[in-house]
């Protein structure tokens, strides 16, 4: 076998391992009823509540459209950032990550499969949000599905990088869910994911201005409310990308496969 043949066969093997691990992650996710319930249904519940309390218009569209766009953004951060960070901490502290590392499963394939699995869950959730919005509040389906999918993939990549970075600095499994939600819920509120921030005090809006989720909400608003391409928001993409890169750098320096309890 020559070098090229080895590369081809190892690539095929990596694809097989990715599919295998993706199936594994889906099985693990849906088998754990509590986690599946909270992660999958929580944004839907929020949409029901927020859709009922907001009235008026935002950027010339019915405000419930903006609420839906905000919850898609929140759902993306919830699965790619919070879900991933909590999963990684739990698996690191229980020794699963360390155990997997001694198998032939390559770490990049593992992380890619975990991320793809959270994206599948999020995609189903987004479909459910659109159906729910259509049925209850008359919200339209996205004008360009392709642009929305691209936006969500970009956002998920950035939030996943921040999720692995956050997992790297959380020390114990017990506190992981609290710490992650302590970051995510205020961020979602300040970024306008739970409804427009126009009426917020100046200080709160200023804090929101540096958060990645705010810029992600802007891109989703442009794509969903106004039917624009995601590339029409270069400034927001740049801020989101910078946060993603910062997350990757922190991950590269701080990420550990072994439980923190071990030296």
């Amino acid at each position, binding site marked *: 076998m020559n070098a090229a043949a080895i590369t081809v066969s190892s690539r095929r093997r990596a694809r097989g*391992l990715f599919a295998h691990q993706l199936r594994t992650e889906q099985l*693990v996710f849906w088998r*754990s009823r509590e986690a599946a319930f909270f992660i999958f249904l929580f944004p839907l519940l929020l949409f029901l509540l927020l859709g009922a309390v907001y009235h008026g218009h935002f950027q010339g569209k019915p405000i419930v459209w903006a609420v839906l766009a905000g919850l898609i953004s929140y759902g993306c951060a919830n699965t790619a950032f919070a879900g991933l960070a909590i999963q990684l901490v739990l698996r690191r502290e*229980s*020794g699963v990550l360390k*155990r997997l*590392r*001694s198998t*032939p499963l390559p770490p990049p394939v593992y992380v890619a499969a975990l991320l793809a699995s959270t994206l599948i869950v999020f995609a189903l959730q987004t479909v459910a949000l659109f159906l729910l919005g259509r049925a209850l509040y008359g919200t339209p389906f996205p004008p360009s599905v392709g642009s929305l999918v691209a936006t969500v993939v970009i956002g998920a990549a950035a939030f996943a990088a921040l999720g692995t970075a956050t997992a790297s600095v959380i020390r114990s499994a017990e506190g992981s869910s609290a710490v992650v939600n302590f970051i995510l819920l205020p961020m979602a509120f300040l970024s306008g994911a739970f409804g427009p921030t126009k009426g917020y005090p100046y200080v709160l809006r200023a804090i929101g201005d540096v958060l990645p989720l705010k810029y992600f909400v802007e891109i989703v608003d442009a794509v969903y409310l106004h039917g624009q391409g995601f590339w029409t928001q270069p400034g927001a993409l740049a801020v989101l990308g910078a946060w993603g890169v910062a997350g990757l750098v922190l991950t590269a320096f701080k990420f550990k496969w072994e*439980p923190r309890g071990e030296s």
Partner: protein
Amino acid sequence: MLAIEVSGLRKAYGDLEAVRGVDFTIEEGEVFGLLGPNGAGKTTTVEILEGYRRRDAGEVRVLGSDPGKPAQDFRERIGVVLQQSDLWPNLTVREIHAIFAGYYGAPRDVDEVVALVGLEEKAGARVKTLSGGQKRRLDLGIALVGDPDLVFLDEPTTGFDPQARRAAWEMIRSLRSLGKTVLLTTHYLDEAEQLSDRVAVMREGQIVRIGTPAELTTTELQTEIRYLRDGEEVLLQTNEPTRVLAELTTEAVARGEELEGLSVRRPSLEEVYLALTAEEVDE
């Protein structure tokens, strides 16, 4: 063929020298026991061999490969049982075996491995319903499902009840009969003595003694001969038990006496181990 070759291995964490110049080799098909108290450097040594940690100095070959820069098939050929590992609680025993089997190019039959580790009756049970001993058997099962040539067992029976330990020992013996090489770390001396072809005793980052359990117990401490004289116990310690015993019994027979309570006892590995780990290490 050698499965593992280690020479001059060193590893420090900051100022703490965890491993200070370790040398040993393990033959293919051998069961090798690494014994020592907590903090002796056993786990650090094993984790370097498994590819988890980088070494500071020394040469290491595991299955012909440097675990710091492993060959492509290195992880296909090793199986690992970690001290702590708590797999997905909501999956079943069989599902987890099938998941791990999927990571390997040429795995063993899943149901066969589940049976081998004695979990057939629990094959459909979720992991969270297993007892501690059953979870360790699951750990062993997923270490074997890839059909490895070399198996690392880090304290495989910690927390087992005596019956579960016997069962685990039988499984480890069956690994030897399958021709696997096994590197076992343990606190339990009887475990090392029962299972290992050779034992290395580690203390403060160094190997203080290495050999078969029989070699360790015959050379290190003197054999004890006890009997009762006028109701008092007499204890003789000797390196020449045959001669001493012959003299003792010849005299007694000549006097027409019975040596009451006569016993001859070789020191157990435990006593050798305690003596070794208590004595000062030569610098």
